[in-house]
């Protein structure tokens, strides 16, 4: 892997269907590795996928995939991308090995190579025993694995996976995630992962792109985003009438529970002792200060909903 290289570059992308703007001035890039593409339903993920695959001409902007212009060289781009759709997408009436082999032939593999590689990828995704059975009779998990095999058969440089762990039991999910990690780390593949299962994205991807209403809200390394959120603490206190007001004024109060428990965010430059100092000044006694673990969900919610700050009505709401 060459992390400095950009394999996907989207610049000022605007996709419009009639009067509806699906993607508006989206700009992001992706280095080799695994990257998550997150957004609510209707955020513009599908339109971005279509633009990357060269299936929809952008109204404005450009999309470069693996150094190719997706608009001009759509078929070439698609030959180098492995796409695993979210919906059930299998060639009807075929066995597993026939379906995967046919997918390979559609991607330009000669018949013999397609057949050989079909067996290999079906072994890889754990369908060795079932590969001669008709795909129509597969379980949901087996269909997911077949879709992944279809995406891998032609040795793509970039894999575009839409909800790859849908329908899998916990064991199967762990196996597939392990396989995907293996593809990234050992086989040098890059992944763009769309999933609503955020722990999957967090466990697999180093970077993430957050979309909402056709716009890129945030993008970057998940680690950096978590750091930028600052440290979060659950806090209980007694006394100190103005303590909550002061926390709010200083922008430290993140959330206030009905039971009086506070969620306080400390920016990287502030120390925990500053919190105790502030409490001391206002005659408040901190009774509980517990670090709160932040996850991708918090990044996502903050990006799409803004900071979860609920205004207080003054006075102390701490437990007495």
């Amino acid at each position: 892997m060459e992390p400095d290289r950009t394999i996907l570059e989207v610049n000022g992308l605007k996709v419009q269907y009639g009067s509806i703007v699906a993607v508006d001035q989206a700009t992001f890039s992706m280095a080799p590795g695994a990257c998550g593409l997150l957004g609510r339903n209707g955020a513009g993920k599908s339109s971005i996928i279509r633009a990357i695959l060269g299936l929809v001409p952008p109204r404005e902007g450009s999309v470069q995939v693996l150094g190719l212009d997706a608009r001009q060289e759509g078929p070439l781009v698609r030959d180098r991308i492995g796409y695993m759709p979210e919906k059930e997408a299998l060639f009807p009436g075929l066995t597993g090995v026939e379906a995967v082999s046919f997918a390979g032939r559609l991607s330009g593999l000669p018949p013999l190579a397609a057949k050989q590689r079909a067996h290999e990828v079906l072994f890889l995704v754990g369908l060795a025993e079932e590969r001669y059975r008709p795909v129509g009779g597969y379980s949901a998990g087996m269909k997911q694995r077949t879709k992944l095999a279809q995406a891998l058969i032609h040795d793509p440089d970039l894999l575009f996976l839409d909800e790859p762990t849908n329908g899998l039991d916990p064991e199967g999910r762990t196996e597939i995630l392990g396989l995907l990690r293996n593809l990234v780390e050992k086989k040098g593949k890059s992944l763009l992962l769309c999933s609503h299962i955020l722990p999957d994205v967090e466990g697999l991807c180093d970077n993430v792109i957050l979309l909402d209403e056709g716009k890129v809200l945030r993008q970057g390394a998940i680690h950096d985003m978590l750091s930028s959120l600052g440290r979060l603490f659950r806090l209980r206190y007694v006394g100190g009438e103005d303590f909550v007001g002061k926390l709010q004024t200083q922008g430290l109060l993140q959330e206030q529970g009905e039971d009086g428990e506070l969620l306080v965010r400390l920016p990287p430059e502030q120390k925990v002792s500053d919190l105790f100092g502030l409490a001391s000044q206002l005659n408040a006694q901190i009774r509980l200060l517990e670090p709160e673990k932040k996850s991708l969900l918090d990044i996502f919610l903050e990006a799409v909903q803004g900071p979860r700050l609920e205004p207080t009505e003054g006075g102390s709401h701490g437990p007495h």
Partner: protein
Amino acid sequence: MGLIEFGYRPYVGERSGVGPRIRAMFSLQIKRFFGKRLSLLFYIGCLFPAIIALVFVYIRFVVIEGQGELAGLRNLRGISRNNPNTLFGRSLEEISFYFTPYLTYAMPIAVMFSAIVGASTIPNDRNGGALELYFTRGIRPVHYFLGKWLGTFFLHLCLILFPYLLVWTIGIFLAPNWEFFKNTLPFIPRLILAQGLFCGGLSFLVLAQSVSTSSARFSVMRVVGGLFVFWVLARMLRRFFHENNFLVLSPWNVLKRVAEGIADVTASHTFDLGVAIWGLVALLALGGFWIAKHLKATKAVG
């Protein structure tokens, strides 16, 4: 189901162009049709008119002109000892013997076959999500349609043309001399061209109408119903207005008339070839428009 790393390797070979990919789609369609016992039985059942033609060839060259073994066939109406070239009013040495069966009395068989092999293929792909797989690979919707059309076209030929070419070939070998071959050879290229156009046009129209639905059953019903309704309507209007050109309203008649023009077969109650050609152009344009409107990658992907 344990995951086994079974030598997933980089692919270093050449990638093929569009042609082999279309060929893969074509061969898959043929394989899927002939690979199923039920569809094979259906196909054999649909060959009934061609089997009748083979019986005629047998009677003409083996029973009548062969050893004279007429036992059991003496009472068959139409077998003329004086004019053995004609059986039941049909001559093996005329193009109409090989050309007309599926376009006239066996039309329901041809329509049913066309609906089964052509009308369901794209809806099945759409319903199973396969359309998304096709369009996210290195092929365009036009290539996809071309692959499907070639498969459907070939299957139509397997019913409407190839069996009759086989009957003709068998006739050549059964005939006592080369007269039959010499008399029939001149019209064989016209037969191939005419049936090719008929099968190609029918395949195109059947597939084109199917691109807008994901229900194979609905698509089959639309083909059978549509062809039948327009065929009846055209005949009714022709009778009511005493104007043969009303027959152009039926796509079946249009294809048949143009094919008749190429085969140089004179049919009763026929209409202008020029009108039929314009009708065909209009149908193809309408089909093309329908395909462009409904077979879009953007609708299938994401």
